[in-house]
């Protein structure tokens, strides 16, 4: 199957790309990491997450989905996983790159980690490449070209998930 850039890049969220400068993203990440350590862990409300997803104009099977603003690869949602869980029989990468994505549903920016799911060959469904805030390999924490399965026992690449780490404070 051709890796079609028209499919990859022609999405509605492209206009969000210039929303936030690089420096403010990085400053925000620093604040979140610092601030979050002072707070107790909030309970996870899976129902509200599902609700938020269904409120989104795009589904987690769509490349347009808000959390995917800096993803590069096959969406695990199409491969037997979800937007934040790996498909059965694969292993999640312990290392990841990050993005800062705007959730139109609540008007907030979120820090998202992109983890690869590893140990099977490419799932070959829902290829999605978006590059908001993506940086070359000399800034690896923002680079989506690397094989982030590199530190797994089995480094083969299967698909990619996005995991909300927290709100990006302004």
């Amino acid at each position: 199957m051709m890796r079609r850039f028209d499919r990859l890049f022609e999405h509605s969220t492209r206009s969000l790309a210039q929303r936030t400068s690089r420096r403010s993203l990085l400053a925000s990440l620093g604040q979140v990491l610092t601030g979050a350590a002072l707070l107790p862990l909030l309970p996870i409300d899976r129902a509200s997450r599902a609700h938020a997803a269904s409120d989104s104009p795009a589904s987690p099977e769509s490349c347009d989905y808000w959390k995917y603003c800096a993803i590069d690869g096959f969406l695990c949602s199409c491969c037997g996983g979800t937007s934040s869980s790996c498909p059965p029989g694969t292993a999640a990468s312990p290392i990841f790159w990050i993005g800062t994505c705007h959730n139109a549903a609540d008007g907030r920016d979120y820090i998202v980690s992109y983890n690869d799911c590893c140990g099977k060959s490419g799932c070959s469904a829902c290829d999605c490449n978006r590059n908001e805030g993506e940086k070359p390999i000399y800034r690896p924490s923002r680079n989506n070209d690397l094989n982030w399965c590199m530190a797994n026992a089995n480094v083969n690449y299967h698909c990619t998930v996005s995991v909300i780490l927290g709100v990006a404070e302004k």
Partner: protein
Amino acid sequence: MRSTQLFCLALSCTLLAALALAAPPPLPVEHLTVERLPARSPHWIYLYDEVFDNEIDARVYLYDGDSNRRLGQINAGFYTSLNLSPDGATTAVAATYFARGTHGARTDVVEFTDNSTLEVTHEIVLPSKRAEAGPGLFNLAYSTDGRFLYAAYLTPAASFGVLDPGAGTVLGEIDTAGCVLVIPSGRYRVSSLCESGRLLTVTLDPQGHEASRAMSEPFFDADSDPVFVQGVPTNSGYLFLSFLGQVHDIDFSAAEPHFAAPWSLLAAGEQGHWRPGAYQVAALHKSLGRLYVPMHEGGEGTHKDGGTEIWVYDFATHQRLARWPMKPQGLSRVIALQVSQDPAPILFVATENGELAVFDALTGRVRHIEKHAAQSPWMLLNP
């Protein structure tokens, strides 16, 4: 997952909670997990994608015909043979691997995947003799009790390996005198198809060694009307279709195969115009007795052309019940199909353009079409 959690703790990512307190509350942090399969369903289908352009990366997709979602993937290597264990709990995948991906030292191996986790549990390394053949149920087949696994060999000399999937060992090799493939029946018979139109049946002892062998009378003519090797399980054995549309229903329940009189898929006016054709040429709902065959108009040499229609038969009376054309559904030619064995059956249909269509097997109504299900969907299996 353990290492993931360790890394997350190091980064304090489990503490990255939402900070904004204004309504609505921010989305909570998420925790990366690995999905578990739901309980097995009769509406699951194992879709074999041969990936013809990149054959070293063949795979099996597990797909759910109720949720219309892919559930997972089993990797399948190069020139794959595969089958499910009789209890449906295991997928056996025999493939060839190379030390340098596309070249280098060859390893033939059967790998066993636990169908409840989609993880490989163990493997059996084979001699480098595995038949690298077109898809079908008889390249790699379990004995009906699951005790033995038979692997067809072709070098091009024909034989087969007897494997013990429980112990993970090769028990032996049995020469088949030019006859090919492994058609399992009873305890423990393996039949092979011969160019003469006969079946060779080798009976094994409980240790997997040859106890006896017998050759049947011819039941088809490889010159005038050969049978497809893609046999279909029936309640008492297997049916084989011929290129010209004869149905050979073979009872394998006794020591010697018994051949019912063949019947034709075609009415008089259809002979010579319509014929079956696909990579997987028929599916049978065993308890309802419904037979589904991809059919097309065409002559000699078109036996791999996919079906433009699916014809539905009552397997007991040989009556044709329906013709379901694909074009009105927006579907291309049918190259593989399978029917679930439950009382509310689904017919799964794979097409030359890589579509996977989910039909109500009783009415022919299309329930769902997956547009890009696979690159080369050559076989569909269900437990």
